């Protein structure tokens, strides 16, 4: 079997993201995730750079790789052209592929995103959709949103949208042809497989916990 490091190196984001880290800490200084959680991109890049399989395992089955917010501020600032945010993308992909994501609390939460954003894409053609966003799941939406949602047919028509109708325009119904294209692309390029990995990894974890 290929080593974790080899598998990571096959990912072009890893090749783009890791040159040689001098451990200067600039990324950590500007990182919004480091400001609000126990997360340190400098340390993470150092750990990856050790190429030590045990250290990499610790990353792949832990919470740290799930803390990054993918703002990519680190890309702008690293004096050595590294991008911790890209290294994270490769680590997350490998963590799901190997099933190790399900060992961490944060990794397991990927299921929530797959079942919302992931499924919305195939149902509506977009990542988010007004019909799915209620103030129970999203209380920060607030009372104006609640009022908007209750009256959406009329308000969206007033604002020139094409809500749930065929043709062009805001919040239109996406044609079956386009949805079929997305579905076919998801099958061909491994998104369906990844969805399956997320579902089965999380299901196994839930069973083990019981």
């Amino acid at each position: 079997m290929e080593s974790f490091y080899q598998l990571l190196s096959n990912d072009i984001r890893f090749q783009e993201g890791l040159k040689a880290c001098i451990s200067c800490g600039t990324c950590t200084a500007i990182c919004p995730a480091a400001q609000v959680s126990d997360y340190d991109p400098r340390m993470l890049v150092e750990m990856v750079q050790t190429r030590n399989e045990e250290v990499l395992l610790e990353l792949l089955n832990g919470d740290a790789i799930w803390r990054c917010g993918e703002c990519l501020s680190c890309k702008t600032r690293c004096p050595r052209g590294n991008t911790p945010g890209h290294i994270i993308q490769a680590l997350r992909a490998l963590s799901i592929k190997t099933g190790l994501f399900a060992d961490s609390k944060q990794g397991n939460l990927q299921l929530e995103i797959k079942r919302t954003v992931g499924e919305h894409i195939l149902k509506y053609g977009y990542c988010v959709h007004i019909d799915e966003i209620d103030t129970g799941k999203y209380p920060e939406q607030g009372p104006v949103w609640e009022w908007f949602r209750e009256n959406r047919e009329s308000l969206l028509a007033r604002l020139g949208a094409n809500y749930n109708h065929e043709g062009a325009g805001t919040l239109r119904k996406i044609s079956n042809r386009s949805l079929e294209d997305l579905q076919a692309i998801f099958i061909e390029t491994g998104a369906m497989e990844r969805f399956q990995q997320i579902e089965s990894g999380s299901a196994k974890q839930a069973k083990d916990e019981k």
Partner: protein
Amino acid sequence: MKNKNQRWLSYQKEIADDHYYFARSCIRQNFFPASETIFLKILREELGKDIFDDPEQTTCTGIAYHSGIIPLETTMTVVARQFALMTRAGHENFVCSCVTSFGIYIEVLELWKHFPEQEKKTREALLKSTGLDFKIPVNLVHTSDIIYKFRDQIAAKASLKLVNCTGGNPLKIVDHVGCHYAKIFPDKGIGGAEYPYVLAGLIDAWGGEQVDYPERRHCCGFGFRQYLIKENRGYSVTNSKFKFESMAPYHPDLIIANCPGCTFFLDRWQYVISEMENKTYDSEGYGIPVLTYEEVAGLVLGYDPWDLGLQLHQVDVEPLLIKLGVIYSQEGKYKGMNGEELGKPAKPQFLKTH
């Protein structure tokens, strides 16, 4: 002087003059549902431009991609499909209405330059799954780049300036360009990562005053998976709070945001902070209004604020309209398509609304 000008030139970018292919945004459509319609209206009716609004286009998958639930290959192939639709429509200037998408499109194009075999693989995957082929866009920009390009033409048609109608002082305006506009590929954004000017240029051209504050470049806190997972949302609100705390001493009258996600967070987290801490970042208790650049352009051009969808913001925009001297109907705010009364939203606990 020549040197200085030359240096500034390196912060400029090529923005096509006409004939655009338009790609909508997942977030802008839902939360600022008039913005894209206004953008198209301004381009077609005010500026006389040709822009194609294709019913077949879809998400770029950016939110799913940055949350780690789909592979890079999927995103590349969906992006390739968008380019194929553009090619099929006979266009070559691609315009997207979302900063996350903008970052995604540029990233895919850059990766294909660095890894040509990946572009080949994507072409094969697209052909196999959809039968489509594509050309790379000649020009690829964000919608705000186009508003920036034509800011002086818009100013020439303006019915108001971004100034306080009593006293005539310029309004103090915070710009938020969004991380993925210029932090990933600084040379692709007007002004680069150091001096992003895409929104500041609008403020300057339309009579307002830029607010420079310490956390001006800090992330709004979206964090993709960090917002999407309910229990992680503290990440998001805390980062927005850093910004509000940092800008408040400068007394901004308005925030303009580039990315629909940022606009949404900077609006809604003010409501949440007010509910949690009974705290607002203006002196009157209404909060600081947060608008998209299309909405601001619409106001400058004299459009009715309720046709711009400003009644759908949680932070009330009426204090801003009063400062600007916009004449608006208070009853019209809560009316539907045929002028019917739709009731009113409930009042927040602390955040004041008119």
